[in-house]
């Protein structure tokens, strides 16, 4: 089971790399925002899997809840700001 969880963690990290390509390469700024959103979803799942792997689920789940809420506030603020600014 431990080896399986380790493989899941490694593949999640590779997927974060794919989204990071979109963040660095994206033609418009909204692509970067979208990539950031995807990365944070992956990071929430990665934190929980990591908690199972290290047998400290109770601590890591609290961290991931906080991360989800912070991600909402940050992404909404950036989206609102770009909407006001209004350039593609």
């Amino acid at each position, binding site marked *: 089971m431990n080896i399986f969880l380790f493989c899941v963690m490694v593949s999640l990290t590779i997927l974060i790399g794919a989204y990071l390509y979109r963040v660095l390469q994206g033609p418009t700024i*909204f692509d970067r925002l*979208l990539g950031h959103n995807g990365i944070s*979803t992956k990071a929430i799942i990665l934190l*929980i*899997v990591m908690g199972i792997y290290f047998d400290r689920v*109770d601590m890591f*789940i609290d961290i991931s809840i906080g991360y989800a809420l912070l991600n909402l506030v940050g992404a909404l603020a950036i*989206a*609102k700001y770009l909407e006001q600014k209004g350039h*593609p």
Partner: protein
Amino acid sequence: MGILSIIFIVAGLFFLIVAAIGVIRFPDVYSRSHAVSLTDSLGAFLMLVGIALHEGLSINMLKILVVLILLYILNPVIAHATVRAALRSGLKPWQKGDS
């Protein structure tokens, strides 16, 4: 219990990989946001249900379900905000005939 959770986690991982391929392949912001929403809705659901099954019936399982509900409420909001910002700033959607 172990086999079932492994099946769920592998299925979720499959959807996450498909969504990442979609994010790289699709041509513009609007269609990429569909790929990200595929990740959020089905991939994260299957992964977290698999982890909750592995964890068994305890307070941690309830907390994982709270994370799942939060993801389900918050992610459409973020996707909608991004797409609306893109639309209001005048970004044209990709049509079929474009390169």
